[in-house]
């Protein structure tokens, strides 16, 4: 191959200057040099010519059809990815570290991480078909609302929900019925089983709530044993259940709910009663009853005082 004759000490500068890739000081030095060095002047011209050819290569179009096809395929993949993505963040709360996850469709996960605020301990880390992305922006507002809720300044979390992490249609059904339990009220697993049309499935209902991906938002803490026992919550987190209920005005005694000192109603009923009301059929379906900690809560759920027992005239004293 022909070795071009060029002064080697200044060659990189000549190349840079000829291809428009140098600073004015270098350009000037190169100009001064090539003015008195004909071989380098020749090389400079040749590199200028190469620059012209490179410019032509730069202008060679790539068929827009190919670009369009690639773009179309990419958009389809992005759509799939977007659909799989759950953006999450882990926040501190009075209930320990809480992870909130949200997809395009809505909030899909609220999870207690205890003191280990690490996504590796989260369900997200073991879920197939889910892309977990840490991102504060989208869930930040949810977190603020959740905090207001935990402080008792808010009684509803009206979030769009994404129930993709719910395990089965039956679970979905149970969670939907659970969402109907009013703020400040409790009912039993057996009662919920009746609500979903499977009166003997109290245990299956408890399992469905155990896997509730959206605790607090879907208020599984409002479901207790038929005996009034708190039973369980999020594994072994009975304390959290007590805390949540107490925020809503439901007192607990040790690990039971003192139902005798609560107002009583039925799902879908329009009035509420004293526990002693003769209208309450104690023998029939007692597990279907729902209990309110306070009259305010019962009335906020749209119920009015029973005309027989008049809880408005004879409020319970605690």
């Amino acid at each position, binding site marked *: 191959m022909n070795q071009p004759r060029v002064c080697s000490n200044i*060659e990189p500068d000549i190349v840079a200057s000829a291809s428009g890739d140098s600073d004015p000081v270098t350009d000037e030095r190169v100009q001064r040099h090539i003015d008195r060095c004909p071989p380098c002047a020749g090389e400079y011209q040749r590199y200028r010519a190469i620059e012209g*050819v490179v410019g*032509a290569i*730069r202008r060679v179009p790539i068929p827009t059809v190919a*670009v369009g096809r690639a773009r179309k395929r*990419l958009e389809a*993949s992005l759509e799939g990815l977007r659909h799989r993505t759950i953006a999450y963040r882990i926040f501190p709360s009075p209930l320990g570290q809480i992870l909130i996850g949200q997809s395009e469709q809505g909030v899909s996960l609220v999870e207690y991480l205890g003191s280990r605020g690490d996504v590796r301990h989260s369900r997200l880390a073991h879920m197939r078909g889910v892309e977990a992305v840490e*991102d504060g922006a989208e869930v930040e507002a949810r977190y603020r609302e959740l905090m207001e809720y935990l402080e008792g300044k808010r009684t509803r979390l009206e979030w769009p929900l994404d129930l993709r992490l719910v395990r089965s249609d039956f679970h979905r059904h149970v969670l939907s019925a659970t969402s109907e339990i009013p703020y400040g009220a409790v009912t039993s697993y057996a009662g919920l089983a009746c609500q979903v049309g499977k009166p003997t499935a109290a245990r299956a209902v408890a399992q469905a709530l155990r896997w509730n991906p959206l605790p607090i938002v879907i208020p599984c803490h409002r479901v207790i044993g038929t005996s009034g026992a708190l039973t369980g919550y999020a594994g072994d987190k009975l304390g959290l259940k007590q805390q949540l209920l107490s925020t809503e005005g439901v007192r607990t005694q040790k690990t039971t709910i003192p139902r005798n000192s609560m107002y009583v109603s039925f799902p879908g009923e329009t009035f509420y009663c004293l526990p002693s009301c003769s209208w309450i059929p104690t023998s029939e379906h007692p597990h279907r009853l729902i209990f309110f900690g306070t009259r305010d809560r019962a009335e906020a759920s749209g119920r009015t005082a029973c005309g027989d027992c008049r809880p408005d005239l004879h409020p319970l004293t605690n």
Partner: protein
Amino acid sequence: MGQQPFETILEAHHAEIYRYLRRVTSRAAEADDLSQETFLRAYRAYRALPSDANVRAWLFTIATNLARNHFRSEGRRSRAHAAVIVSRSALDDGAGPEGETLFNETRARVEAVVERLPLRQRLAFILRKIHDVDYEVIARSLDCSAETARAHVFQALRKIRQSLGESQQMEIQR
């Protein structure tokens, strides 16, 4: 505050990144796969990108990294070259005024040299000379200093120059 939606990024940069990868890989299918992977990665990382970041430079960095991984197997790379040289010379076979034909021959020769450059030199050359990417960005993409990136481009130009020799084609200026 807040970022632009990712669609805007796609709209602004997809065609250019595709073209870049098409030049680097020289096969439509590979460019297709690599550009797809570039933007899927970008989508995943986009939320964490500072809102004042240079998105174009960032995308070139991702694309270049993917291309480097792609070519890690040298065998694959030589196959790609063979394909390109054939297709390009076929393309340039058109009749035309003498000067134009000569110019096209030179262009084909320059492209052939670029195809045969060592990977880093080739990437640095294409980034700098075809896509006008800053040396700092090239350096980041190739895990080297800006000086080294500059040296890669210099070496590439030097090889092009050597391959053209003293032939008359060099006299043609456009």
